[in-house]
Structure formats: structure tokens, C-alpha cells
């Protein structure tokens, strides 16, 4: 008996919605097995990892703080991936955005104006977009694979940040710690409520709404989907593939850059070597789990934020490494991509004599 994948006549809309649910279930099931192999009670471990973060006000605020950058970046990546432009380097664009936005507090520390923060955010977006323009240029000019170029540029950005923070931008009064000056109050994002939640969360929601409208209601969104599905049909329609590559790359770069400066001008309050715990990479999972749909990205961003908090919780109450969250994130991406095959294909079981035994899902 063997298993075969048979192409469906139509994309399955049901599977498109079911696939993330299936992937999450498979991730949790595999996670339970991993916990059990560590000698832990799987039920308790799963509870600590996935549900406990939702039980206190503090951790829910923390969840929002972590979800905001994931959603911001995920919305941009979703746009990119709709066009089949594979920007893998959001982490680098985030880093450059954080650096560009920090120019004001570090080099023009005394400029105090209502425009200070706005300028910082704009610089962050500009920095991220400019950095994303490099792989876009290389792709349109030399047909260089953007997966490779954007990914490699992440490391360039991180080393640049490291050099700046340990070198010219180090706080002279910082006892030689690799940190910049602490930002002043007017250089920080205002808080929403009394806790740690800041304006970044509002920006993320705004991005979701704006891009949900762009993706589903405007010609630009249509253009991006056409170019992604069928570039020749796109050119027949009068759209330019190059323009789409630039547009999606620049927008996703700008959003990643905005997420970067929001991290620095929000929870962090100064430049440090660890600008992000891999938000730019995790947002790739967010985009796919959210079905490349801005509203879906919102939910997926919250879920992936749980995996960060869960990792910390697991370290504290279960005594296992916080790296477990990377294992969970990796599994989730793996399962979502595998389950997505079921949107276009269905599984059939074939017995050795060639008869269909059972039509599967």
C-alpha cells in the first residue's frame, strides 16, 4: 500500500483555513512527545508553555509587546510573499531600521520637539526600506536570488550594529558596556495604558488595517497577486514585475525597519547588541501561518508571541532551555508548509494492486 498526492481540480478553500489549525495541532502533539522524552509531564508542560502566559495581566501585556513587531513585519512579508518575492532578510532590515532611527537620540541628543519621535520612526522606515532595496536591485538588475542576498545581508547588518554599539556609538559614560546612551523621554514611544504596552502595538494594528484594505480592495493588491501567481498574465494586464519587486521589498523593509526602531524606542530604550530576539525570522512563520493575509497575520503574530513567552516560562518553571521556543517555531513552519500541500493536493491511499483503498483528505 502506498500514499500518493493527487492534484485537486480547484484550490481547496476549506484546507486553506484548516491547514494552520492542523499545523498547530501537530506542533503541540510533537511538542508533547518532546516534553515526554525530557521526562516531563506532557500535559503540564504544554499548559505551562501555551496557556500560562495568558493567565496574568503582566504576561498578556508582555504578549502584546512581543506580538507588535511580529505583526508589523509579518504584514510586510505577507505582501512580499503574495508577489512570490521571498524577502528572508527582515531581521537585517529591522536592524538597519533600529540603527537609522537611533541616529537622532545618539547624534542629535538635544533636539527636543514633537517631531523628534516622528522623525525617528520615519528614519527607521527609511533605513529598513533602503536596506531592502539592495536585494531588490540585485534581483531586478542581475536576477540574483533574493532569498540568498536578503539573508546574507542580515549578517552584514548585525555586524554593522555590533561595531557601532561597541565602537563609535558606545555610551562614553557607560562603564565600557556595549550600549548606547539611554534615550530621553521625548525619544521614547508613549505607553498605552499603565504597563509596558507602547505605541508600537497601535502601529501594528494600523498596519493590519491599511494593508488589509490594500491587499483586498485596491488595484495595487490585485497587481501584487497577479504578479505572484502568473508574471506573464501580469505583464499582459499591464503590470511591471520589476515595479512589484521594488514595491513589495521596500514596503516590507520599511515595516521591518519601523518594528526595529519601535523595539529600541520602546521596551529597550537604548541600542544594545541584541536588538531583536529573531523577530525578523519568526515573522516569516507569522506570514505563512496567517495565510499571507494581514488579518490572519494579526492572529498568527499573537500565537508566535506566545511561543516566545512560553519558552521563558518553560525555562523558569520546567527548567528546560528557552531555546525550546525555536524548536516549536521551527516545527510550526515545517508543519504549516507540509499541510499547505493539502490545499492543492489530496491524499489517496493505493493498495499494491492499484485500487484506491480509501480517498483521503
Amino acid at each position, binding site marked *: 500500500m502506498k500514499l500518493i498526492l493527487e492534484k485537486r*481540480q*480547484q*484550490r481547496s478553500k476549506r484546507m486553506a483555513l484548516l491547514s494552520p489549525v492542523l499545523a498547530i495541532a501537530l506542533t503541540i502533539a510533537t511538542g508533547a512527545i518532546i516534553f515526554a522524552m525530557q521526562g516531563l509531564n506532557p500535559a503540564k508542560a504544554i499548559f505551562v508553555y501555551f496557556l500560562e502566559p495568558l493567565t496574568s495581566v503582566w504576561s498578556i501585556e508582555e504578549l502584546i509587546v512581543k506580538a507588535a513587531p511580529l505583526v508589523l513585519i509579518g504584514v510586510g512579508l505577507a505582501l512580499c510573499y503574495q508577489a512570490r518575492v521571498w524577502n528572508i532578510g527582515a531581521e537585517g532590515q529591522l536592524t538597519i531600521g533600529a540603527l537609522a532611527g537611533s541616529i537622532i537620540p545618539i547624534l542629535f541628543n538635544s533636539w527636543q520637539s514633537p517631531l523628534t519621535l516622528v522623525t525617528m520612526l520615519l528614519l527607521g522606515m527609511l533605513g529598513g526600506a533602503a536596506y531592502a532595496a539592495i536585494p531588490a536591485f540585485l534581483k531586478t538588475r542581475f536576477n540574483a536570488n533574493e532569498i540568498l542576498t536578503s539573508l546574507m545581508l542580515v549578517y552584514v547588518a548585525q555586524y554593522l550594529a555590533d561595531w557601532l554599539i561597541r565602537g563609535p556609538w558606545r555610551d562614553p559614560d557607560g562603564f565600557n558596556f556595549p550600549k548606547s546612551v539611554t534615550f530621553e523621554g521625548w525619544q521614547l514611544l508613549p505607553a498605552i495604558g499603565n504597563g509596558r504596552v507602547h505605541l508600537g502595538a497601535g502601529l501594528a494594528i494600523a498596519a493590519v488595517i491599511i494593508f488589509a484594505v490594500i491587499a483586498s*480592495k*485596491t*488595484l495595487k493588491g*490585485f497587481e501584487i*497577486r*497577479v504578479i505572484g*501567481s*502568473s508574471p*506573464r*498574465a501580469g*505583464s*499582459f*494586464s*499591464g503590470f511591471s514585475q520589476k515595479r512589484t519587486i521594488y514595491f513589495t521589498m521596500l514596503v516590507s523593509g520599511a515595516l521591518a525597519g519601523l518594528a526595529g526602531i519601535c523595539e529600541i524606542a520602546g521596551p529597550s530604550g537604548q541600542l544594545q547588541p541584541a536588538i531583536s530576539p529573531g523577530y525578523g525570522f519568526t515573522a516569516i512563520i507569522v506570514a505563512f501561518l496567517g495565510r499571507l493575509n494581514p488579518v490572519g497575520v494579526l492572529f498568527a503574530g499573537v500565537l508566535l508571541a506566545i511561543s516566545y513567552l512560553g519558552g521563558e516560562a518553560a525555562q523558569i518553571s520546567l527548567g528546560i532551555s528557552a531555546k525550546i521556543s525555536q524548536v516549536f517555531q521551527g516545527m510550526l513552519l515545517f508543519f504549516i508548509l507540509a499541510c499547505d500541500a493539502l490545499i492543492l493536493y489530496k491524499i489517496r491511499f*493505493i493498495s499494491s*494492486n*492499484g*485500487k*484506491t483503498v480509501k480517498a483521503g483528505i
Partner: protein
Amino acid sequence: MSKDVNNSKTGTLLEVKNIVKMFGDLAANDDVSLSIEHGEIHALLGENGAGKSTLVKIIYGSLQPTSGEIFWRGRRVDIPNPSAARDLGIGMVFQHFSLFESLSVVENIALALPGKFDLKALAKRIIEVSRDYGLPLEPSALIADLSVGQRQRIEIVRCLLQEPQLLIMDEPTAVLTPQESEQLFKTLNRLASEGCAILYISHRLDEIQQLCDEATILRHGRVVANVDPKAETAKSLARLMVGSEVMTVSARKAKQDSARVMVVSDVSAPAIGQFGVALKNINLEVHAGEIVSIAGVAGNGQGELFEVLSGERTEYVSGTITLNGEDVTSRNIIQRRALDAAFVPEERLGHGAVPEFSLSENIVLTRHSTNDGILVGGMLNSGVSETIQNRVSSDLDVRKGEADPQASSLSGGNLQKFVVGRELDRTPKLLIINQPTWGVDAGAAARIHQALLDLADAGSAVLVISQDLDEIYAISDRIAVISRGQLSPACPADEMSLEQIGLLMAGAHEKTPAQMEMQS
């Protein structure tokens, strides 16, 4: 299996009984039975979506029937996959070839054969077999350098090397010149005389009458008749196929001295990519109220000409193109559509339509900037595109399973009607259409032809690019021929004999480089 049974050349070779194949609720094959004798050339006739391909795929093992039985030499068999079919002695030549362009003929064939590689011995066999059957092939030639007809020969020789008892041919002449088709028929007759049975799928009724001993006609997945095609007329066959009298195309009265809608003067464009064709000094006028057709063998610059005339490609184009008196040479396709021009490309899926988009989304593809109310203040109005979709579908009788299905789920003929109807719905002043009825059944083809004639009668200019000479003669006022990127002057259709067109297709009007030099 004993040897004498294996070698018998008489009696029934293949019998399929009561085959049913369901796709969801749709019965693509509904109780289909058919039998083929040794040495018989058996035609399988039917409209697009009648279930021919499904049946053939079941016989070739790439689909499994929902129910029904297959007998091979009187023995009941299961054919779980194509390699099992080949082991039985069933070979198939597909409509779309699967050859590696950068490999040679012998390498391509070696890849398809079981056993270990011995290119030298194989090359020798290829030469023998191909010469024996009048299909000359050079084993060391690169696929990229070969014409479509030559590529098809490779596929046929590849099958012949496995000494098939049954050869399935899916629309083999769709891509061939008349001469190449004649040669193919000779080969097929020769094969049949040696005892190999042939299952021949085609839309071309004249071919089937000329070639086939028996024809099974499918309609909506059912067998409607088994007939001797030689005893039928083309009309009666067509009637069986579509179930009603085929719409006959009404005669045209050519209009003289009407306004020039499109003028192409001295347009040249370099080839793009390894396999592109350069356009050289194209001159052409299309007047209001007339249909001008461009004949030619596939791959002689038709695709390039379409792209340049539609404005999909404006880079590196020299010369001038005017539309209603305005110079549009450097304007893109959206701007040309805004000047009331409309275009239908050759490839329906992936060029004329996005396969995974719904029909109403595919309406937006060419109508977003043509003042149809789809785009209002930068926002798409899906209600309008749905209305247009419904109108197009009912005007051209597009048959579909649900109200607004994915484009890829439509059969070829129905999608073509949709893609053509989407443009006709605008009543454009100029319509440029590449291969209007390629791979489309007789019913849909007649419908499209009539629509083109009606459009011209209403005063629009129509430019048709086609390989189908019957089609060209049926609808054209004037005919030009393209070969290797050069276009012959367009002459009135009644002054062009088949022989003349044949000569032009072979390049009679092409200018040598020296002549081109003098002209410019």
C-alpha cells in the same frame, strides 16, 4: 502469457468496458466502452470536456477509473501507472512534449527508456527506426534547435523504440504544417499495416475521415456513436460531436476604403533570449470593418509580433505603430487598451488568464483601466466585475460548474470563449487575437469565428494570428504570412491560393540581409 498469444496480430487488442470516472460530482467518463483491433486506426472524437483526455489517461495508466474494466488481448488488466502501460505495449504521444531543450535527441530518448545508457547503440537504433518510418532524425541534434514537427518525431520515435502494440496520439497535427501532417499520416498508415493499433484523438474532422477506420464519439462523458468516418460527412460527424447542427459562419461582404485603425510601419525588434525570434521590418495596415489574418508555422515570430503590437513589449522596438492616428509605439498595453484596442494572447492559462483566480478576478485583468467602472477612486468594485463576468459567460455560452469558478477548472474551449468574450464585451475598435481557436472544439470555434465576424461587421478592425488555414480562409478579408520574423504584404483572401500561402510559409517573401540593407 504464452508466446503465440503475444505475437498474434489479429482480433481485439484492447477493450475497455463500462468505464466510469468521477471527479467529485462530475462524471468525466460515464459508462464508456470501446474496443480496438490490431492494426486499426481508431479515432476518438469529442468536444473539449467531452472526456477524451480522461479516457486516454485511464488507458495509459495516469488516472484510475472509478469503476469499469480494461481487457488487453482478452485478459483483464489493471494499469496502475504509465510504466505498466508501456510494459503492456501501450505508447503515447502527448500534445505537449516533455523534452529537455538543452539535451540532444539521443539523450532525451535515453532518459525515457528503461535499462542502462548506451548512447552509441541507441543512436544507431534511432537512425534505423526513424529512417524506416520516414521520420528522419539526427540523434546528436539539440532539441532547442528543432522545430515543433521535429520534436514530435522524437516523441513518436521514442514510442516506436519500445515496439508498442497500441499508440495513442493526442491532437498530433495541431502543431504541424500541412506537409508535416501528410508525412505523419504516411507513418501512421505504415504502422497500422504492420499491426500496431492507433488511438487517434483530434478535432479535425477531415483528418479523421482521411485516416481512421472507426470513430468513437464522446459527448458529455458518454459514447454517443461508433461510426465509420469514411461513410460520414464532416457535417454529420460534427453534428454527432456537438449534439446539434454546428453554427455555420455567415458570409462576409468585404468593406472597401474604410479608415485605417492600426498602421504598423517598418517595425523591428531584436530577439529576446535564446529561442526568441527577431521581427524584421514589419509593415501592416488594418482597416475598420475588416479581418486581416497572419498565417504561418508556429515559432516564426507570431508571439513576438503579438507582444509588440499589444504593447506588452515596448523596449528596443523600432519603427512606428499608430492606433486611430495616434503614435503608440512607446505606449504600454494599458494605454493602448485605453485607445479602444483589445488583445487575446495565445496561451489562455498563465497569459490570458491567471489559473488560480476566479473568472470575475480575471475580468479585472484586462478591464481595470478601461472605464468600465471596475476601478473607482483607486478601489476595485467586485460587484462590477461579477456583473461583467456573468454577461460574458452568458453571451458566449461559457459552461462552468459553479457561478464564479477558478479559471483553471474550465475546459480549454470554455476558457477560450471566456477570454475572447471578455474583450468582445467592450466592443473594441481594434482586436488582436493570437490563435483564436487553438485546441478548441468545433462548436466553440464556430461561436468564436462568428463573434469575430460580427465585430468586424460592426465596424471594428480585427487582426487574427493563426496557424489554422481553414480558419484563416473562413473568416479573413486579407491574408499575410509570417516566416522567420518577416511579414509578407497582406493580400485579399480570394487572391491567395493554398499553394501561395504554403510558399510564403516556407519563406518565399523573406529578404536577404543585402536586400534589407538596400531598403533601409
